[in-house]
């Protein structure tokens, strides 16, 4: 029986309230499609388009109000390689077929001369160190990584065939094998209208018309990409995510938003095929108007408001609903201190409370799936780190007013950089200093190599054949980073069992610091949202924090004494607690008004997850494939690669193989 709700679905997805699961079970299905994808981010969108290209009907369910996941927030740096079409293009010095890319190649042909074998070796050999002197690659699942390497070239072509435009190759991303240049950002050209087919975006949509405003099209203001394309090019995740979304909608992929994937439906609890999913209604209301939020584009959307629905997958389910970085209870298995709910995952306001909530992991475990690479969460210093953006809970990225989720964060925050930490003291929840502030945010260098621009690699003489790319002296340099994040996560005085919370953390400064640093402590950078406070006296500041911050559980009873003691250290020129006088000048905190800005620890990547084989089929605890179940992106473990390159290829492989499944 079809109802009115099916009218907008076209041929791809049918509502058939009376059907069974095809195995004779008395399941009740609300929708069905050949391939059902949980999650509309980089892995999910790629998988959906790929399966659709191969003739499948595809329904994507996503918990959020809009598509793109964290890809939409990203820098769009897609690191692939293995001799991919972009590397070949840049070796030849060619531009793109549309004539947008006219800047010369950034990397030399030697840096771009790549192969699948070299790429595979780069990311599985035990002896290869990354830019931080860490050796994560030995733990990667070899079959998974081999499949990834082999599918990098066709995935790059696939993305380019779906309106994704890449600038010049420029370095390589963390975990992507650093012996060759393999990464590039995605761009659009500034134009009179936003037109994905034409490759243009307006200044307003790109967020470059007003430095304090962005748009729903691009929640983060796009970057000038003239070096990698030509004058007038702008880049970031919007150029990637919106292009893929546009293509998916154009090709007939169907989307059910506000629909949080919760469970897999298997023929028997731990046996048989995966035949569908259950998903719950997860509406998000506009933070100012209270109205239901709307996706940027609506064509292909399936409106459905019932609390729980079941969707039958005739061929396969693909789990691409992200990782677990937004689930403090799951995070705590890796670092108990990260059970602290004050510390969010990246993109909190964009994704909402259901983002990165370990839904794939939880559902997979319920049907007997195995896990992989869980320890790899601790294999990178970037997994969780202390942000230099202060005064906002959503401290990983900036976002300006104009995107509908800005109200959830309330403030863009002030990025003070590492150097800015000399302007204040950092205190814990009881108002005590806990670390040398200027060393607090330090961590290993950035990940791009051989693209340069990030110390200590800048200007090095790179030998293309030397894939063990880190000399011993670099390793020593890289191991000098401090453990400020661990100090920040230490048990705070005032916390009690069973929680022993770590946060929150506060930067305390005076008006002289604001003027020295020229920080603009005004909206939209800070706001009256519980993450920034100003007061006439230190005592008042402590009281305001306690009253106004959602995670401040105890009084900052030591703050006034801490500031007085600090001023004494400044006058004496010595900091006997943390020896700060050796690293940077010290400044009194004396001139009113006084300011407090939140300091956040952010958990970004999820490296552990479901175990999959080279086809991206989920494998159970006995090593057997769970029929009809695929996974990709951060839902998957066993591959410590940061960023989009992993997810897109996972989605490409999963979509390819899911489409080849027999229909049930």
């Amino acid at each position, binding site marked *: 029986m079809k109802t009115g709700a099916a009218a907008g679905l076209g041929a791809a997805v049918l509502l058939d309230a009376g059907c069974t699961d095809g195995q004779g079970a008395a399941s009740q299905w609300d929708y069905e499609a050949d391939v059902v994808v949980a999650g509309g981010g980089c892995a999910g969108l790629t998988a959906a388009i790929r399966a659709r290209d191969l003739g499948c009907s595809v329904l994507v369910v996503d918990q959020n109000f809009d598509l793109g996941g*964290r890809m939409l*927030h*990203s*820098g*769009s*740096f897609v*690191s692939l390689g293995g001799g991919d079409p972009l590397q070949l293009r840049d070796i030849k010095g060619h531009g793109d077929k549309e004539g947008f890319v006219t800047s010369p190649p950034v990397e030399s042909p030697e840096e771009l001369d790549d192969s699948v074998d070299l790429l595979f070796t780069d990311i599985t050999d035990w002896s290869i160190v990354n830019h931080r002197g860490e050796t994560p690659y030995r733990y990667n699942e070899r079959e998974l990584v081999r499949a990834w390497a082999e599918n990098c070239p066709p995935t790059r072509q696939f993305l380019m065939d779906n309106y994704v435009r890449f600038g010049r190759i420029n370095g390589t*991303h963390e975990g992507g094998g650093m012996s060759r240049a393999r990464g590039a*950002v995605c761009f659009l050209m500034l134009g009179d209208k936003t037109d994905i087919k034409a490759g243009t975006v307006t200044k307003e949509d790109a967020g470059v018309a007003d430095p304090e405003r962005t748009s729903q099209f691009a929640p983060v203001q796009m*970057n000038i990409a003239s070096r990698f394309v030509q004058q007038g090019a702008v880049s*970031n*995740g919007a150029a990637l995510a919106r292009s893929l979304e546009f293509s998916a909608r154009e090709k007939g992929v169907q989307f059910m938003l506000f629909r949080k994937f919760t469970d897999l439906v298997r023929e028997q609890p731990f046996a048989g095929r995966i035949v569908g999913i259950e998903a719950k209604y997860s509406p998000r209301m506009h933070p100012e108007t209270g109205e239901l939020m709307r996706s940027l584009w609506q064509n292909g959307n399936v409106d459905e408001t019932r609390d729980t629905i079941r969707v039958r997958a005739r061929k396969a389910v693909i789990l691409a609903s992200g990782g677990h970085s937004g689930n403090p209870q799951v995070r705590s298995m890796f670092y108990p201190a990260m059970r602290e709910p004050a510390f969010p995952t*990246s993109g909190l306001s964009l994704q909402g409370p259901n983002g990165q909530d370990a839904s794939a992991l939880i559902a997979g475990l319920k049907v007997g799936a195995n896990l992989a690479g869980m320890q790899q969460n601790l294999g990178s210093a*970037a997994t969780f780190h202390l942000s*230099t*953006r202060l005064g906002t809970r959503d401290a*990983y*990225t*900036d976002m300006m007013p104009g995107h509908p989720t800005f109200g959830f964060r309330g403030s863009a925050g002030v990025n003070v*950089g*590492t*150097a*800015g930490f*000399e302007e204040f003291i950092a205190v814990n929840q009881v108002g005590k200093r806990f670390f040398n502030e*200027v060393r607090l*945010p330090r961590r290993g*260098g*950035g*990940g*791009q190599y051989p693209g340069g621009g*990030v*110390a200590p690699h800048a200007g090095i003489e790179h030998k293309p054949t030397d894939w063990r790319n880190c000399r011993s002296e670099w390793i020593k340099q890289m191991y000098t980073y401090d453990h400020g994040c661990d100090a920040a996560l230490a048990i705070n005085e005032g916390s009690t069992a069973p929680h022993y919370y770590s946060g929150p953390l506060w930067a305390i400064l*005076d*008006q002289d610091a604001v003027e*020295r*640093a*020229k920080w603009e402590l005004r909206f939209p950078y800070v706001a009256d949202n519980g993450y920034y406070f*100003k007061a*006439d*006296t230190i*005592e*008042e500041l402590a009281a305001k924090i306690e009253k106004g911050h959602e995670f401040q559980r105890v009084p900052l009873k030591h703050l006034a004494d801490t500031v*007085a003691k600090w*001023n*004494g250290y400044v*006058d*004496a*020129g010595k900091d006997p607690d943390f020896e700060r*006088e050796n*690293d*940077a*000048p*010290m400044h009194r905190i*004396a*001139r*009113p*008004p006084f300011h407090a800005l939140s300091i956040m620890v952010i958990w*970004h990547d999820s490296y552990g997850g479901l175990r999959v084989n080279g086809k991206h089929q989920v494998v159970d605890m006995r090593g057997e494939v769970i029929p009809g179940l695929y996974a990709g992106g951060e839902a998957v473990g066993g591959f410590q690669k940061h*960023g*989009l390159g992993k997810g897109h290829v996972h989605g490409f492989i999963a979509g390819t193989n899911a489409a080849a499944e027999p229909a049930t």
Partner: protein
Amino acid sequence: MEVHATRVVVWDVPAAIECGVPFRVKVGVKCAAECGAGPRHVEIRDEHGDAIGSGVVGDVPSPGTSALYFAEIELRAPKAEGVYAWEAAVADVFDVATGNATHTAASARFRVRAARVPECLLKVVAVDARSRAPVPGAKVVVHPYHALTNADGIAELRVPKGAYRLFVSGRDRFPFRSDGEIDADVTIQAELDEDFGPSDAELWS
């Protein structure tokens, strides 16, 4: 009637003052209930508790504050070198009619460094390490002396002879540090490296 708590804040105390030379500080008085401070009398006491200066807070709050009324008070540095712990204090306020206290007494300590006359001129030229361009607005600190570089990236400080540690730092730049002895006028070029932390885009991708 509830007695309002009072807080005292002292600022704009010079980091070092030549012995015996007059200087000015600001003393703010804040009522927790944010009622006007009224004509509250501020007294400055030296390390022995002796009154050495005084003033009356005005009726305009200090810029950027909601109700911190302040007085600017002239003081004189001690004649002997050293760091001195002084205090700014306000007394209780009583209702004339009832005799009941309306505002509490309060005080705040601050330190005054009396220093000898600096003999040497330290000239600092702050430049970008890569481009060699001058860095204006950089902070130059030779404890306890400090200055900002001008539009040409230059700052001049008079400092006493002896061991020194120079820091030069600026927005989005890592601090430059130089340790040594100074016994004559000297010029130091400070090459400032950019804060090379990875961008959000690099990390996020």
